[in-house]
């Protein structure tokens, strides 16, 4: 990655307006030079403006140095900026390609949406599928389970890896699984076994999506789900492959939007 102290040239800003957090990224020549994530609270538009101010500050550039902005995310209509808008699918693929140009399939697990995207190997999307109708395949399921276990979502990955007897849920519904988990805890089930059971349930949903898009390796996992090592392992187990995860998986959409904005304005020489 480029040295933070050098004056970056050709800097582009990407912003990803998600359903539970807003992500901002500065990118220069396909490198991620700064990133900021804020939760969605209060005024959506003001929060997006704060993200942009913060990322410019973090990247140690002045506003004048930013060549342009690219926007993506389900809430991309909620922000007023002059700049192109990109679909979440296009943005995520572009972001991942900058890190791993050989990746064929991208899994994006966000708080409300889970996507499986297959490319033709040259960065072009061949097919994709979005799960948005059921919470079981989404990050929201993790948040619900973390709440009843009185732990932070970030603790779930390491906990899950310790599990010896993962709980097998009898239901595919997050609401019913929540009650099932409560009874299992009352019966003495260990938190790690509950969490590992949740990860397995999610992984089998992901596998279903992957089968429908006819996935191909190599595979990358991005979005908040990419930060969960337990979920990563569960998906690796059902797909029987190793999965690539970029250093900051939640920033891939915003990063991709910045790269795409740069491409659309500066012809590649």
């Amino acid at each position, binding site marked *: 990655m480029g040295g933070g102290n050098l004056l970056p040239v050709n800097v582009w800003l990407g912003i990803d307006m998600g359903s539970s957090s807003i992500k901002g990224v500065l990118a220069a020549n396909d490198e991620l030079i700064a990133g900021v994530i804020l939760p969605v609270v209060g005024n959506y538009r003001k929060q997006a403006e704060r993200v942009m101010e913060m990322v410019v500050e973090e990247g140690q550039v002045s506003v004048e140095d930013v060549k342009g902005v690219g926007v993506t995310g389900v809430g991309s209509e909620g922000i007023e900026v002059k700049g192109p808008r990109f679909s979440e699918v296009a943005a995520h693929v572009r972001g991942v390609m900058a890190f791993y140009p050989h990746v064929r399939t991208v899994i994006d697990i966000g708080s*409300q949406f889970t996507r499986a995207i297959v490319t033709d190997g040259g960065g072009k999307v061949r097919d994709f599928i979005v799960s948005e109708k*059921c*919470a079981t395949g989404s990050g929201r399921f993790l948040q*619900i389970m973390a709440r009843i276990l009185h732990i932070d979502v970030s603790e779930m990955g390491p906990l899950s890896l310790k599990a010896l007897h993962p709980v097998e849920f009898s239901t*595919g*519904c997050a609401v*019913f699984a929540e009650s099932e988990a409560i009874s299992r805890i009352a019966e003495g089930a260990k938190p790690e076994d509950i969490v590992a059971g949740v990860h397995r349930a999610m992984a089998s949903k992901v596998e279903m999506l992957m089968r429908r898009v006819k996935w191909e390796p190599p595979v990358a996992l991005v979005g908040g789900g990419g930060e969960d090592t337990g979920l990563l392992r569960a998906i690796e187990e059902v797909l029987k492959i190793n999965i690539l995860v970029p250093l900051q998986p939640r920033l891939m959409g915003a990063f991709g939007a910045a790269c795409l904005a740069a491409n659309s304005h500066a012809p590649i020489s």
Partner: protein
Amino acid sequence: MPVAGIDIGSTMTKVVILHDNGEIAGSLVGPTGAEHRRLAYRVIKEALSLTGMGADDLAYIVATGYGRLNCPFADRHVTEITCHARGVKAAFPSARLIIDIGGQDSKGIKLDEAGKITDFVMNDKCAAGTGRFLEVIADTLGIELGRMGDISAQAKEAVKIANTCTVFAELEVTARLAEGVPVADICAGLHDAIASRIASMVRHLKVEGEVVVTGGGAKNTGLTSALSRKLGCEVQVPKEPFLTGAWGAAIIAKTLVDRGERGKMDRKWAEVTFFQ
């Protein structure tokens, strides 16, 4: 001798006791909780004491519902579909469709002219379309489940709820509340959402004729009127919709006794009392 029907549901345990002549001697509804057996015993004992009877006065006990197998003192276990059909037929002889909205599932039961079950559909895979959906969202709205019907009656314009999933609908409701949408309009929208889900489930049964709604969901007038609108007919609700299954179980118990069947001489109450 009197008989009893006990319906052990996912959230509530219901008991109906019938006199020799078939009239209801007493009934009781109590929470199911985690320990089915002990609570089933407690509810049945309390119902007996309300009628001035003792445990040994019962000639026959039929257990039904999701927890029916956790009832060692029952003489027979009968599925809730059969029991609901019997209970509904007793109160509504011309009923052709029963919609049972329970705490953790919802069912559609199709009946022929004689009240015999010819088909049924069931959703227990997803909380949407079950009582659980309303329970979760009543909690988010900070209102009692029992008041949702009355509150929705004040609605000026029902809000459209776009999400089917309970978890996402809950987020949607939170967003509407933040926008200042009145709670009544949200409640009405939720009733519409669950009613369309149930209506599309029972449509597969292709039923024409009288529709009776039972289970906890039937106590919600907002939900039953939304169902009437979606189905295009006025749905009927029993006086005690909670008790339909237990009543049907008690009627079956009485029929069996009348036919000469005899209940256990030595009921295993003790096994229940000392259950861990």
